[in-house]
């Protein structure tokens, strides 16, 4: 399958993607084969259902949101994404290399992606409700609503510097200063 799919991928396209995302050609080919295997309808683009068909993603508490993030392209939501867009999202999770140029995968890009996981309404703020929703997804029914809202309150209070009861992106970054985001939000894509 890998051979066949890489045949379908034009050389110029590989180079274009490479320059845009920084993936190596072999990585691009490997991911393209993954892309086509996900693409059940063989129409060169992925729909939401294609993503949700992945069994592990179905049990992932945040699976929905993650899929959503793929479709949020260029300030708009699209019904289907093509390989180019698919790669653009994935490129955020390339590990940062010190000596090379880092496109799309800087620390801020990674943080931005995590931030968007919370920020549903795209107002560049995590409100209490948004945080609660994510918390609820993650810890599920194990913790009572009261405790959850307590946690949410506390989290916001902790991060909130300007007192607007929301976590802005800047505040979000500040709270994660100590965390090794570069490492945590990277995947070693196989060559």
């Amino acid at each position, binding site marked *: 399958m890998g051979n066949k799919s890489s045949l379908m991928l034009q050389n110029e396209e590989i180079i274009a993607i490479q320059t845009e995302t920084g993936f190596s050609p072999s990585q691009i080919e490997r991911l393209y084969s993954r892309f086509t295997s996900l693409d059940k309808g063989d129409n060169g683009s992925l729909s939401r259902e294609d993503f949700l068909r992945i069994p*592990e993603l179905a049990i*992932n508490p945040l*699976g929905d949101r*993650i899929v959503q993030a793929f479709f949020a392209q260029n300030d708009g939501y699209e019904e289907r994404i093509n390989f180019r867009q698919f790669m653009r999202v994935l490129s955020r999770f390339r590990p940062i290399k010190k000596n090379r140029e880092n496109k799309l995968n800087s620390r801020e890009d990674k943080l931005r992606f995590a931030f968007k996981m*919370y920020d549903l309404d795209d107002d560049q703020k995590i409100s209490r409700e948004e945080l609660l929703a994510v918390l609820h997804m993650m810890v599920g029914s*194990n913790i009572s609503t009261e405790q959850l809202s307590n946690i949410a309150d506390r*989290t916001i209070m902790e991060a909130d510097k300007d007192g607007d009861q929301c976590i802005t992106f800047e505040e979000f970054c500040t709270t994660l200063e100590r965390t090794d985001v570069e490492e945590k939000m990277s995947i070693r894509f196989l060559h």
Partner: protein
Amino acid sequence: MILGVIIGLIMFFAGIPDDKLQPLTPTLFFLYMLPPIVMDAGYHMPNRLFFDNLISILLYAVIGTVWNALAIGLSLYYCAKLGIFGEPLPLLDTLLFSSTVSAVDPVAVLAIFEEIHVNEVLYILVFGESLLNDAVTVVLYHMFEGYAEMAYEDGIESILPIDYFAGFASFFVISLGGTAMGVIWGFLAAFVSRFTHHVKIIEPIFVFVMAYLSYLSAEMFHLSGILSLTFCGITMKNYVEENITQKSHTTLKYAMKMLANSSEAIIFVFLGVCTVNDNHKWNTPFVVLTIVFCLVYRAIGVIMLTSLANRFRLHRLNRVEQFIMAYGGLRGAVAFALILVINGQIIHAREMMVTTIIAVVYFTVFLQGMTVGSLVKLLNVPRANKGELTMNERIHTRLMDHVMAGLEDISGMMIGNYKLRDKFRHFNNNYLRVWLLRDSNEMGNSSRKIFETCSKLNLQEALNIVNKQNLYLNPNSNSNNNFLSPNKGLSALFRTYTQTNLANLAADTDVSADTSPSTVIPVDHNNGFNFDIGNLAYNPSNKDLADAEIHHILNDAMFKPIKKVRRYSRSDVLEAPAPHPPFQHQIRMQIRHLVSQQQHKHHKRKLKKLNKSDSNSMTPTSPPNGFLSVNNDFQFNKSDNYLKPDSVFRSADCPHTDSEDGGIEFIARKASLDSSAKQSSDASKTTTTTATTATESTLPWRREPSNPDLSSAQVIRQEEFPPWIDNKDYLPQYASPTNTYLGKLSDQTRPDQCEPSLMSTTRTPTVYEIFTIDESRENGDRSNSASSQGSSQTNKEAKRDAQPEGVTRGRFHCTTASTPDTDSQRDKQLSPTVAVNLGFESDDDTDDKDVIYKL
């Protein structure tokens, strides 16, 4: 180790025969010394880190150790062949020796690396390697020993190729079998711990016994006991921690640490003892070459394997980290114990090997171990960032885990850490936890961590508020602001505190109270002459307020004292220690007080009837509610005192010219009996009689009605109170900070005024009575007086503990002496209240008016 050397010297010169000089027998070491150390390491292994780096660790532990053993062994063999050592060494002997010396020792590594706090990846790599390669070493050692035995008995030719293959296969059987055995025992231990909560005393014992059993059973089947024990610890940790009680957990933790540390110490002592004896055979080239080979091959191995591991690792190990890893290859007790076990008949060069091992251990532990810390500093190795994770970090990290797991799915990674972890978590939550945990429905492991972090931070924040508010005292702000800020802090404080238990809380305040006197006094200095008595009144910090609250709660919930009939005579009052001679003003106040008492008596009788009907209709409240309502009640009182001067004026209006002398009997205490009920009955009246400001409307006296039941509701909880509550011994040493506090105050006011003296006299009970009785005469202020009476009485009681007291005790009473901290804060908190009342009172009397305003 040095101690061991000393002991060894003593024994050596005492002429103790040699056969007694070998205290460390293999059975002793492997059955008793090693298990505690390994168990401690396994149980306290940071699971996540360990499994994140498992592949790298295995790489280093297995391949690295085998490489080291073979390389050192072969090198020594060829050196021996070249005749450097002056005596022939067969290949098997050198291999046997090298297999013991190649293993990095967990004991030494743990001791050294725990101190220098390198970053956690580095730590887990070295430490994990040292743990796992013990198994490899033991396997290699037994393998070579077996070959050596065969060679000794039947000659080298008898070893068939199948034996080599068997040795290789046995390695996998031993290590994997040991791991499996450990996991099985771990689950078994977790399962058992599910039922041991009935027998709390032996709960920790179960854990130890199960772990030890895993070790023994693995050894019984000739599997690796070390691996078994390590994985047993790793497996059961999560489940056991949730199943057993907190106390058992603490016991377990410390007992384990203690056992491990003592084993460690004993091993080093033995090592020292063995240093000094006759049997040494120092072969300089052998020793030097061994050390050199150890260092060189370790360095080569690390560099080779790291370059391999870096291809798969996300976090690439740089040169510095590689260097520390290579340098941190400390040899220790395991190598020493293994070499002691060697049969001297089979291996002829045993003495030389023992000597060499001791030299190697000394070299690595002392020289390398001592320098590695400074090297870490010198090379600027990233240190571990210490400190608890914040709430945000926890949640966001969790989010990232999920996101990455999802992305690994999407990008089609076959094996990814996140994916595996997610799957394990799923499996764990669905199956394992159901079987292994007592309350499997509670919450997931990681959710629990989130929650724990939350409550921990809550508590910390509560303390922070307390400390901050201590400093945040703005004397020039107007009364409302000044009142509101502590109020807000208080409610936040109590909201957070209700989650923790009372004992905790008392302990916390105990600590923070120590600093309070020093922090309050400087504020007085800042004020200079612009001292406003109103502000002073609300200067008590949140901590003070909280302490007072806690004190009241404790009082409420404690055993009711045996009611002694005590009587206060006038002489008692005068005997009370007064820092100043009685001023004219003071005397006048006393007279006033006597007068008001008379009236108060009458008033109270009426109230009693009222209360009885009231309290009957109350429904009991649960302790937490009671806790809150006390808080509200308290705030309410404060607000009443502070915000509603009108009512206080009215109370001051009451006739005090009536100089009827009723004898000083502190009848106010009787009033406090009913005070709680009074509050509820008068709460509505209070609101109507006074103008409702914005502040007041926010004040929660709708919850007042629950007050009368506080005492009954909270008596149940008395077991929770810390033992010091009952400690009367605190009292004699107790010195009230009020003196200093008020002394400062009087220093700053003009000497010709009598108000300072009045302030200082607030320590004596007399003055309290004045305002309390005055106010309680007024309908609208009864709730106010209730609490102030309570506090005044407890205060008084603390002061005059040895003196006989009159009249039955009130609601806020307790037989036990108050502890110093609550006492001190109560003083501080109370005296301003008194000051306000007096101030307003005298404001009404025209002759005192100027005094107030000058103040």
